[in-house]
């Protein structure tokens, strides 16, 4: 049972880092940023490329902690830059366009990036050497349960990231400006907030979290491929909707609930249907409480 709790917490962590980006962008622009999944996937690949530099003949040539730190750093920078570029190219020109336009643009960006990465990686699965980076002997034993190093590293890094994000949103001026823009963009601009700057910042922060999430996902699943952004993205997206899309704490809560449901479901009900659980939650929440658990009520019609 403790093992299941650890599993749920790990999966929830990975999803939460991913889901935050969806929720943040929806909160400020009310668009579904499908390209976020691809940003996440590219973050995971940064982990693959960094570790490849330090692995010779199946041996590490540097301190594993250092390698993970470096992967995180590279992923955060690359994902951040990528997301800001995507916003500039695909969403900013459509700020005044009909509501449908940015949605299609997001879909197009997602298809484009996924297939570019597909061509680069020859559509093959790539391994992440979690065994080398976080060896078995680092596992912690609590009574009957064994907690692998990858598990507590993922949970720990996620916790630190979430606390940092919470502090950023609550304590800094930029965080306050982001919240203001999410509430009312026009009013925020009257208060002298550079709305475009804040939108870029939102994409940046969301992508940095996704970058961290990508590295953690690689460590968790030990293999990555070009389509992981979509398959895991659907779960992250479900988590964001479940918590109330646009609400950051909701996204984290939704992620852990989803992960718990999936872990328990695959353990007690059926392993093959574990993916159905996530989508069933998505449909159910959209049919009965589309504002999610913590979201503010959605205006029904005009």
């Amino acid at each position, binding site marked *: 049972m403790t093992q299941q709790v650890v599993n749920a917490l790990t999966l929830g962590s990975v999803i939460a880092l991913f889901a935050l980006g969806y929720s943040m962008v929806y909160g400020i622009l*009310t*668009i*579904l940023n499908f390209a976020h999944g691809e940003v996440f996937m590219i973050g995971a690949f940064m982990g693959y490329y960094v570790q490849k530099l330090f692995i010779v003949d199946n041996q590490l040539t540097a301190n594993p902690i250092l390698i993970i730190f470096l992967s995180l750093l590279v992923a955060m920078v690359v994902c951040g830059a990528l997301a800001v570029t995507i916003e500039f*190219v*695909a969403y900013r*020109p*459509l700020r*005044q*366009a*009909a*509501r*449908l*336009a940015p*949605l*299609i*643009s997001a*879909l*197009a*960006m997602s*298809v*484009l*990036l*996924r*297939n*570019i990465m*597909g*061509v680069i990686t020859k*559509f093959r699965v790539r391994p992440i050497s979690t065994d080398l980076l976080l060896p078995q002997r680092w596992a912690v034993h609590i009574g009957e349960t064994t907690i692998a190093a990858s598990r507590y590293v993922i949970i720990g890094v996620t916790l630190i990231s979430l606390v940092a994000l919470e502090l950023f949103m609550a304590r800094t001026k930029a965080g306050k400006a982001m919240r203001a823009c999410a509430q009312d963009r026009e009013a925020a601009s009257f208060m002298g907030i550079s709305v475009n700057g804040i939108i870029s910042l939102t994409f940046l922060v969301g992508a940095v979290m996704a970058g961290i999430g990508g590295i953690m996902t690689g460590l968790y699943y030990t293999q990555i491929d070009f389509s992981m952004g*979509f398959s895991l993205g*659907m779960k992250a*997206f*479900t988590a964001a*909707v479940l918590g109330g899309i646009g609400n950051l704490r909701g996204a984290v809560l939704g992620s852990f609930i989803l992960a718990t449901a999936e872990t328990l479901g695959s353990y007690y009900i059926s392993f*093959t*249907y574990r*993916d*159905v659980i996530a*989508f*069933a939650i*998505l*449909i159910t929440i*959209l*049919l*009965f409480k*589309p504002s999610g658990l913590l979201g503010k009520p*959605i*205006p*029904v*019609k*005009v």
Partner: protein
Amino acid sequence: MSTPVGFWNRNWGFITLAVVALAMPLLVADAYLLSILAFMATRFMVVIGLSLLLGQAGQISLGHAAFVAIGAYGSALLVTRLSMNPWLAMVVAAVLAAGVAGVIGIPTLKLKGHYLAMATLGFGEIVFILLVQLKGLTRGTDGITGIPPLTLGSLDFSQPRLYHVLVWLVALIVFRLALNLSESRVGRSLKALRRSELAAESLGVNASWRKLQVFMISAVFASLAGSFDAHYVQFISPDSYGITFSVILVCSVVIGGFRSVWGALWGTLATVILPEVIKRIHEDAVNLVFGILLILIVVLLPVKSGPLARVAHDVRCLFHREERG
């Protein structure tokens, strides 16, 4: 009043399309080409429905492949397991698709925002997973074989030429219905909704009901297309009904332009012919090219000033046809 000349002026496009489409079997002898043309007709049906949804109702479905799957699997299962008449099975599947669309559409179309997009995305994935996992019913990835072809009296529609005529006739009827719909009361009220939901509603247009109607119609078109394909190919497997197909359908609508239902025709032509060409150059580049095309169309089209304005204008001329009266 309706003089012969007036009739021709209003309908020359449709008549030309009908004549060309139905005359194809006389001109084309190649079996592969004929099957692509027949496949184009069913794709056309799905794209017409989706084009109505995007262009007329301003909503997007990211799980339309699932409705095609309902048509295909519904027909196949009813015929192979319950020995139902194929034509009846087709209708039953279509009714089922409409019902499912209703269940998804009623709550989500009442809300402002992209809730239909979210719900259809999830729905599409659930259907796909079920097709793969419900092995007892769908035989999983092995697919269903031995689906009997359509027949009518002594007419056997497994014959390519005959099937071509049948499926294009149906596609033309669907197209005519869609054209009429966009010019009817429903079409006009949807047009009003796009301009201003508030103004239209104050004039008595029931916004969510109109959108729901279009969504259900598009589900029926998709289901019919799925049934026709299943009976002709006589084999179906889940691979054809994943998210990739849903996205390609949206691509078709956007590439063709969704201001007018005619865009569905250009979009279908483009997304059926383009992959055949691209495949010969690079096997994996098909989706890449679609992605680039989509970005170009969506991002460039609205640009009215700056260095890109001229390019944007040219693209606009290429892709956005004026509505034909």
